[in-house]
């Protein structure tokens, strides 16, 4: 209120310099705290960034980043005109959309369900076990997935017992995204839910107390107290998830796909990896990376703008 009254006075602003000096004086401790982190970002993130230029160069190992000859947009043209370009971009996007729809809410749900458990020991045991699969390497996890879904695997045994036909899950393009996302949930849901446990733990217990006094049941408490208290965390996680729409690691993909499922399974990174085996090209792969990064940045700007418009949560 008070601020709004004084707002018109701000129209006659003092010069930028003196405003800066005043802000620094007022918030000197906050700025002091930021010195080390900003130095960190400048030295370890921005200083090496001159390396980005190799996307526009023909990289020569002996001439180094700066000495290599410029080649303009050659690598980008090469990439955009590739026959499989649209297919792999589409597949990357689709798998990420599936992830956003199904894998993103899963840890939130798990945290909420665990929150409702009355037995503290049981709760702790489930929590501690649920994050264990996160620690198994992708190779081991994928080995198990193939075992379970193979023609002679337990899932097909089950299907046959109930009178169905055995299904070649890993060779049908239609199943790939489901398998990829579902196993991803299974592996990471426990680990990702830790952040939400922490958020729920930070909820002000007075709010529950008030809700109980108002006669709210468990379901209402969850909807009116627990969920609103973790909404800022959810929003920020969502914004960051949207920012990674075009990034997807190749490791799990190449362990699960095969020629018959390229149609849905081949993503940007796996395609570059497959081409790379025959003749790794440092410049080309950084051009590909740059394309995904630029789009990712646009996505995260968009998501942040949207979130700022409809709520008070945003990255900046």
């Amino acid at each position, binding site marked *: 209120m008070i601020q709004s009254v004084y707002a018109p006075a701000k129209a006659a602003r003092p010069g930028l310099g003196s405003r800066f000096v005043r802000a620094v004086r007022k918030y000197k401790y906050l700025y002091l705290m930021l010195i080390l982190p900003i130095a960190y970002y400048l030295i370890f993130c921005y200083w090496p960034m001159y390396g980005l230029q190799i996307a526009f160069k023909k990289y*020569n*190992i*002996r*001439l*180094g980043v700066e000495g290599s000859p410029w080649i303009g947009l050659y690598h980008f043209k090469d990439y955009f005109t590739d*026959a*499989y370009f649209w297919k792999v971009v589409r597949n990357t996007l689709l798998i990420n959309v599936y992830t956003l729809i199904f894998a993103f809410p899963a840890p939130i749900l798990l945290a909420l369900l665990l929150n409702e458990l009355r037995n503290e020991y049981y709760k702790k045991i489930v929590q501690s076990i649920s994050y264990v699969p996160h620690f198994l390497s992708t190779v081991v996890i994928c*080995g198990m997935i*193939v*075992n379970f879904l*193979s*023609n*002679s695997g337990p899932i097909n045994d089950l299907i046959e017992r109930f009178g169905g036909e*055995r299904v*070649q899950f*890993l*060779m049908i393009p239609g199943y790939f995204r489901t398998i990829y996302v579902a196993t991803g949930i299974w592996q990471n849901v426990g680990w990702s839910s830790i952040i939400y446990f922490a958020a729920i733990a930070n909820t002000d217990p007075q709010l529950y107390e008030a809700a109980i006094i108002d006669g709210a049941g468990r379901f209402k408490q969850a909807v009116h107290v627990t969920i609103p208290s973790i909404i800022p965390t959810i929003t920020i996680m969502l914004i960051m998830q949207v920012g990674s729409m075009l990034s997807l690691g190749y490791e799990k993909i190449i362990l699960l796909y*095969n*020629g*018959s499922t*390229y*149609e849905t399974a081949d993503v940007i990174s796996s395609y570059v990896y*497959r*081409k790379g085996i*025959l*003749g*790794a090209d440092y410049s080309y792969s950084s051009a590909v990376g740059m394309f995904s990064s630029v789009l990712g940045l646009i996505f995260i700007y968009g998501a942040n703008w949207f979130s700022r418009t409809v709520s008070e949560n945003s990255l900046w």
Partner: protein
Amino acid sequence: MTRKLVSLLLALCMLATLVCVGVAEDEDLSQYRITDEDVTIILVRSDNSNQPMQLDSPTIAKIQEITGVKLEIQAIAGSDFTSKTEMIISTNQPYDIMYDCYYVAKYAGQDAFLNIDTYLNEEDMPNLYALFTEISDLSKLYIDGALYQIPVLSREAYRMGRSPQIRQDLLAETGMDAPATWDELYEVLLAIKEAHPEVYPIGNRNGTGNLFTCYAYPFGTGDGVYWEPEAGEYVYGPLSEEYMTLLQWLADAYADGILDPDYAVATSTQWQERLASGQNVFFYDNPTFATNFNGALASTTPGAYFGPIEVPASGDTQRGLYYSKHDMGATVINANTQYPEICCKLMDFLYSDYGCTLTNFGIEGESFEYNADGEPEILASAVEAYMTASDPMRAFFGKYALAKLGMARYIDDRDQDKFVTEEAANWYATWGSWAFMDEPVLDPAFTTEENEELSKLKSEVNDVLSMSYDDFIMGNRPVEEWTQVQDQIRDSALRICEIYNAAAARAVR
């Protein structure tokens, strides 16, 4: 002939050393002296967990004693060797010699490595010079007229290659003879399938592509671009008539339940488990795997065992491919090294008779002795000392930094029988005796431009092929339609062959 002579001479020298202590040895070995200065050579190599590099091994000390060159060995984990060494090269970190550099072609045009040809003459590198003269295929290692790599060569090697292994007990049960053709093999596998419906006889690992890597050559064609001895040139396998025969054979096998339905997705581990537990009973791949399967089968299914059969003939021709006798994987020398000559001479030393024996058998009198024929023999006491290890041979090699995972670049496999089972030794004898096996032909060297074009063409054609294979094998498309796939890839495939043949013609000179 000369080898025997040298061995004899060495034996005589040994005798001489016994008579006139010390002095004679120094004189005889002085020819291997490379430098009297204090020189340290940094040698980068990959480290394999099966035989970790022992930096304090007596063999490395001996190399220093004889040549005067001090070796500082940087063993880099094999799992990350490529990324670490590319980093070393591109940031100009100091090193002199690098073993196991399998990506020479990539940097050939960028002057990262020393042109060894400068020193490859009778004076500086007599042993390698002789080997390059003797083995004509090595001329293919020259890239644009320069030699950047020294291959791993073989003095004496066990010979074997991908070949069939079948459950001999089940073959006997059918009462049929050992199959001599692919059609006969099919009949045998069909009979086994009928007797044991739950069994899928043929197992495969690591994806559909591996079926063609293994089966194409014996079917009279080849996997992708390959050297066709009958035509005397490089041709493209999938374009051939025989390739369709193979596809039909596989499609029938799939339809009849002979080929494991998981042929396209089974990993190497699953493939091994299935063969070891009787779910699969035949494979055409690296045949030495069968020793492990037999060990496991012996404890669960008495009487069950794998044994090799000859490669089945396709039509009139019976043929298979040995694994390459020489490994063309390379040792390179840093273009910036301070001691190019010493590096070259040190490498040459490893290919001398003395150096070869030292790096394959260890220290004379401690780990091996020469027998009456002048051949090195691993001492029984040395074998005894490592028999309790989980892998006795690797433990012995590791201690003395021997063989390919150790210091040796000129490999001598003799006398390893002591470390393998009798069964395996017999198999090696069988495989070594097969006259129908062909020697693999080394790919010619390409220029940088050719390499770039090839990598594009190959990834394009390979994608089309791998997206098509399963449809044909699983019967979704009739094999006659393979001609459509051939039409789709023909231009690119022929261009690949053209580049190969042009490069090969250059190499012949």
